[in-house]
């Protein structure tokens, strides 16, 4: 059985190219439509989540290295931006630094942890993440466990935050698409499948993993910085929490691991669901995530994107009945079941 060779018609191909731009246009015009500040805040948070989701997806989805330590980059980005903005540095310059510092940190974390594979790597990242949280809890310059309040000597304009976050998310989408369809991305996909075989064909797995780890960390860090500026108050138990790492990992898994639009979808769904869950079920919202995760892995390892894809294909060919069992993308299989075997 070959892959369902999906040859879109010219019209469809054009729609595919236009759709993201259309979406961006609509989102750019939304604030002028007189939305309530609450909705704009929700959208802002969603853009932040989408960016972290895309970041994690580059390492976890594309390269198959499941990390439970992305809160480190999110937190470092948040604190970097917070400290700089508080000292009067231009916020956008601060965001740049909020990308660079986590990227640097990712190299130091990656150098030892990428010697490990599969679940061993995942466990090591938990250790690094927890250690960072404890350090930040006790660091005097950031206010330790009691958190850090940012005094920005500028007028707070919610729309500016909105556009910053939108721009950031759009950039993350563009970068992800670019990476996925490049030679670099091809090497990463090969590493995900079989590291040793990739090395036999000329890919340097260690260097490639370190590089994509840094790119992923940079995006996650910038997201943390953008969030910190908006929140104006951050504390280690929030941004460095293990829970944050789990959230960041959960989004691409819900949306569809290894695909750009799956990661975006996951971020959007998570951003909205998170809001409702926390508001309505503050006690059990983590339990619900657990249940959701188990359901997704059991029923649809390709996530929501995979589900939509199937639905779409079924609508396109209504005549063919049960015969076309969908083979799925196998992307998810690799991460969920394959990670342990290497």
């Amino acid at each position: 059985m070959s892959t369902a060779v999906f040859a879109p018609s010219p019209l469809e191909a054009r729609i595919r190219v236009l759709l993201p731009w259309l979406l961006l246009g609509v989102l750019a015009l939304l604030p002028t439509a007189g939305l309530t500040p609450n909705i704009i805040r929700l959208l802002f948070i969603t853009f932040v989540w989408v960016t972290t989701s895309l970041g994690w997806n580059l390492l976890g989805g594309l390269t198959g290295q499941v990390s439970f330590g992305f809160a480190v980059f999110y937190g470092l980005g948040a604190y970097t931006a917070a400290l700089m903005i508080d000292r009067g540095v231009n916020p956008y310059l601060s965001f740049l630094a909020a990308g660079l510092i986590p990227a640097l940190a990712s190299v130091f974390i990656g150098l030892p942890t990428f010697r490990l594979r599969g679940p061993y790597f995942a466990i090591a990242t938990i250790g690094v993440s927890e250690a960072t949280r404890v350090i930040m809890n006790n660091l005097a310059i950031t206010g330790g466990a009691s958190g850090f309040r940012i005094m920005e000597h500028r007028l707070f304009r919610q729309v500016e935050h909105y556009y910053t976050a939108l721009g950031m998310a759009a950039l993350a989408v563009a970068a992800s698409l670019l990476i996925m369809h490049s030679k670099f991305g091809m090497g990463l996909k090969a590493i995900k499948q079989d590291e040793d075989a990739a090395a036999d064909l000329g890919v340097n797995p260690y260097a490639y993993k370190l590089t994509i780890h840094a790119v992923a960390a940079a995006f996650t860090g910038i997201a943390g910085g953008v969030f910190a500026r908006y929140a104006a108050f951050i504390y280690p138990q929030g941004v460095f929490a293990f829970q944050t790492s789990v959230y960041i990992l959960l989004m691409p898994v819900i949306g569809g691991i290894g695909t750009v639009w799956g990661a975006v979808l996951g971020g959007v769904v998570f951003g909205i669901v998170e809001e409702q869950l926390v508001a309505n079920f503050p006690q059990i919202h983590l339990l619900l995530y657990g249940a959701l995760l188990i359901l997704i892995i059991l029923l649809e390892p390709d996530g929501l994107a995979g589900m939509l894809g199937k639905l779409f294909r079924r609508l396109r060919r209504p005549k063919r009945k049960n015969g076309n069992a969908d083979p799925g993308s196998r992307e998810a299989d690799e991460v969920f079941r394959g990670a342990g075997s290497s």
Partner: protein
Amino acid sequence: MPEQHIYGFIGPNGAGKTTLFSMIAGALQPSAGHIRSRGKDVTGSPPYSLVKSGIARTHQIVCPFRAMTVLENVQVASHFGRKSITRTAAACDYARQVLARVGLAHRADALAANISLGDQKRLELARALATDPELLLCDEICGGLSPTETRTMLDLLRRIRQQGTTIMYVEHDVKAIMAVCDRVMVLNYGQKLAEGNPYEIQNDPSVIEAYLGKAGSQKKGRVA
């Protein structure tokens, strides 16, 4: 080791053929001794840098990127081999050419997990070829293939050699080795037992003894 030859390695199970290959290709480190390629010491170089200096291998147990298509598998090698093609379209074109060379062009869009073992062996060869090697290490490329498939594969090896690539070839099937190799080395317990052209090897008393001395190796012994 002469260039532009097909150099065969045979030997009983556990003789060290695959281990020798793994050391040359950089997957294992020799505990003693050196590996030299064209006068350059390459001992301990990792596989990905050996690929860049023109040494590629195929595996006895095939290891395709299962979730990728056949074409994508070869595309990876075109990107990261000695050709080091950056543009995706160019890498695809080159990959298609290589697939045509090994007779796998018709399966280009199939998932590597879904093709037959014979085709997976060809894919293994295509990937190694796409790195544009000067020295190709083939580890039991015909293992598990039917006689017809074996014959096509051997023809393929001859053609690759004609195009200027040196081949080191390990196989259990002595008949295949004798048919295709210019020179043969026999290994036993990690030691060189004999070396020479196929005719010399077939009549070497120590080789016959090594094979016939083992229970369960009668078939091979008869051929040798």
